[in-house]
């Protein structure tokens, strides 16, 4: 295998097969504090993940990436919107046995390998739980299955690792256990919430490679959350970019990252470290703070920081424009008529 992420066009799901996940207008409003302040963490998000596809979700801290994953995993209940798993509608208010059954199909991997394993239990116990809960193994089969799982994530011999407790493992080894736990239930969809950001550079690559290999071997679909654009490009077939709860750009990885079409994605890309160039202080233009989620501007949420803003940007949330095959961006610059308007902040325009 030469290409890290399988090529988007070659492997994209055939039109006939149903996507692994479809979200329609998913919204989550949190009520925070005593004053009943409403925070819209996820705003009308629609997307799909094909079978065997990796979709990366990138964006600023607090833009709602984790909330989307938690909504999909039903750790939070959506305020509105719909969700389909392999074409089947999943009710927003799943409870009881139906919820347990649903959880077999969707598993999460968390960011902090130190926080996501209960330090008081052995690795063996931790991995046996999903097997027991979802009736995958019972009795004497369990240890054998646990060992197989451990060996699948590169922790061989399984029996030795199963006897250990989390504090005896390094960060990378723990994250392998976390991945093994997610695989135990034999899910179709993996939600990986920044699975590598707590890890060391070289281990980061190991974990990404492991996830890619498992995806290929088991035909898993994956939502890969990260704030590392280079990592997203390495892992994903398609990338979606979030800003203040909205998807502002979505499309094939190489297009979104190599030729971003939304000013926010362009900002993200210019902020990413680039070892090939020496530091150029003037490069990042957007100043200012991320807007308050409970009090978003009426138009484009990025308008207050955007160097390209026009009057039309203040007039309402821009729609998603098609900017290439399977590539959309939420920015009025892609409306030829509106793009003619003069800049609101000429002083912010890029100097180069």
């Amino acid at each position, binding site marked *: 295998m030469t290409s*890290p992420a399988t090529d988007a066009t070659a492997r994209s799901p055939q039109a006939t097969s149903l996507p692994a996940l479809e979200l329609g207008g998913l919204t989550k409003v949190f009520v925070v504090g005593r004053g009943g302040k409403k925070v819209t963490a996820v705003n009308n998000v629609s997307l799909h993940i094909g079978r065997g596809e990796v979709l990366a979700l990138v964006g600023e801290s607090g833009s709602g990436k984790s909330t989307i994953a938690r909504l999909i995993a039903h750790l939070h209940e959506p305020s509105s919107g719909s969700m389909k798993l392999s074409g089947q509608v999943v009710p927003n208010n799943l409870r009881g046995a139906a919820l347990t059954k649903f959880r077999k199909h969707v598993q999460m991997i968390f960011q902090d390998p130190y926080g996501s394993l209960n330090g008081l239990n052995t690795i063996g116990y931790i991995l046996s739980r999903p097997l027991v809960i979802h009736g995958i193994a019972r009795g004497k089969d369990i240890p054998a299955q646990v060992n197989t799982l451990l060996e699948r994530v590169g922790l061989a011999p399984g029996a030795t690792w199963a006897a250990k407790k989390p504090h005896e493992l390094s960060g990378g080894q723990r994250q392998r256990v976390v991945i093994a736990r997610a695989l135990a239930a034999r899910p179709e969809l993996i939600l990986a919430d920044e699975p590598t950001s707590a890890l060391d550079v070289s281990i980061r690559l190991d974990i990404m490679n492991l996830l*890619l290999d498992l995806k290929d071997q088991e035909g898993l679909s994956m939502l890969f959350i990260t704030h590392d654009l*280079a990592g997203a490009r*390495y892992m994903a077939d398609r990338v979606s970019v979030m800003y203040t709860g909205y998807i502002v750009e979505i499309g094939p990885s190489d297009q979104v990252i190599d030729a971003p079409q939304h000013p926010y994605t362009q900002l993200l890309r210019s902020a990413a470290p680039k070892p090939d160039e020496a*530091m150029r202080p003037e490069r990042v233009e957007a100043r200012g703070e991320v807007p308050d989620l409970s009090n978003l501007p009426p138009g484009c949420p990025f308008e207050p920081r955007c160097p390209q803003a026009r009057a039309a940007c203040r007039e309402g949330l821009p729609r998603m424009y098609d900017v290439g095959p399977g590539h959309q961006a939420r920015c009025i610059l892609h409306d030829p008529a509106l793009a003619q308007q003069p800049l609101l902040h000429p002083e912010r325009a890029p100097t180069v």
Partner: protein
Amino acid sequence: MTAIPIARLTPLAWLRAGPLGVIWRSPRATTGAVIILLIAVLALLAPLISSYDPSSGAFTPWIKPGVGHLLGTTALGQDIFTQMLYGARLTLLIGIASGLISTAIGTALGLTAAYYGGRTGEVINTVTNIFLVLPGLPLLIIVSAFLRGGGVWAIILVISLTGWAWGARVLRSQALTLRNRDFIHAAVSTGESPARIIFKEMLPNLAGIIAANFFGTALYAVLSEAALSFIGIGDVSKVTWGTMLYWAQAKNALLQGAWWWVGAPGLGIAVLGMAFAFLNFGVDEISNPRSNHAGKATRVLRRKSVPKVVDAAGLPLMSIQHLDAGYVTPSGPVRAVRDVSLDVAPGEFLGLAGESGCGKSTLAFAATRLLDAPGAVFGGEARLAGQDLLSLTPEELRRTRWKDYSLVFQASMNILNPVIKVREQVYDAMQAHGVHDKTKLEARARELFELVGIRPDYLDAFPHQLSGGMKQRVVIAIALALEPKLVVMDEPTTALDVVVQRQILQEIDQVRRRLGISIIFITHDLSLLVEMSDRIAIMYAGEVVEEAPAQQIYTAPKHPYTQRLMTAFPPLSGARERREGIPGRPPSLAQEIVGCPFYERCAVHLPGTCDVKKPANVEVEPGHRVACFLQSPAVKPAVYQEEHDLASD
């Protein structure tokens, strides 16, 4: 590392490792436990210790403490020592039983409130708060007035009912943080049942707090029983330390000069209360450590050394020579920095990179005299503008730090005091070094804020009103306040967003160019480091294995480790092809490393050479130093043997 099979632990080790282990790890808690055990044993053995009956008034009243009656007798002619022994039984029973019951109620309600949240949580919370604001003693009195004559269990019930709320509150808040930990989310998303999550995942992790809570409520119960009995509510026909006080008061013991009648039970209650309090604090201290890094970072280790200042002309600004540092642990020294020599030129941006645990922070701390115990400098020197930092007195050090050099850490923003305005905290740093003029302070503070890209109006904000990125900028502003010659930054932006990180780094870079300060910048984000630095030093297992101009490290690395490291992160542009990490892990720094430290992971090593000899750090090209036999056959001399002996003392 090997697993410790639980079954093979010795009983003593089990005691330490087991659930009650916390008690033996805190001297205070151990003291408390011993006192309570002692009282319990005396109470249980009462009939063996004393042949008298605690309530029969068979003796002469008002006998002073003496040989026949160790603690004298009461007005009714009872032996007080015997009463103390038997009274301990009920007093302890009331303490422990009420402690257990109220802890159980508090734990159940606190956990339920935390797990379910929402409306259930709100209701429990409201009830808890009502019980918390109701004044304890009056409530006790009213309730026990109704239960009068109900005996000991009525007392226990009353005390438990009034004593659970505080525990419920503490437990709820602890359980809430636990509830939001990822391993609980993981259990939920695996499909675990709520009962199992509460009892199997959450409860064991709260054991320490529950134990502390139990000792706290037991203390409350002992004191409440005494108070209730003293004012005569309670069952005064039973002997407890509380009812002893009641009778002593009723018979005017003190007026009669019979201080012993009041003193014995009073002291008993005080000692028992103290024992419970010790247990409570001790267990709480260990199981609930509130880390206080900001305060700790000032403890330093000073090395006795000979020359103090040498001529600084023509020398690098910072010069670290043969520095050896690490940690002294019960199982021997950890040598986290091994014979490191590094220079930083004036105005230079030096990047320090390497895998987690390779000693980057230890190097930064040791060279700047910030290494905490158990950390220690074993040998070598660190000079700033010719001055040996390692031999400064604490007073000299205080004057040098912030003025000549300053530091910024990843968690630095936590050093900001949340209740003091940012302005005061910026002023503080300058005032400590003799700037007192208000207008000067104000002007400088505004200037600093503009320097790091924050609007000066934020000087009037409290830290909690700022985002993480802004707080980190404030800390950087403080670090720059006195225009130090050197700023050491240990992952100052790792916790921040990419865009914010970029903005701050640009700020730092501009300031450094404008003021000509040197920067030592530590991170494991290599792509960032290559872009930012003038020169980069790569650390591996405590040693600097390669050192070169940044672009050269990136495009033409010479050490096999650096070569692997530079392709171990995916690129932002260019071909999307599979890359491989570096197999294996670095060697343990607690052991002596024979040969090249990278030997085991190195694909191109020379058998018979790399595994037996240590490569010397050699300048193979101008400005490019490497420690690898593929680059130079030079063997590193064993210079630090004597320092190593020092470390193992």
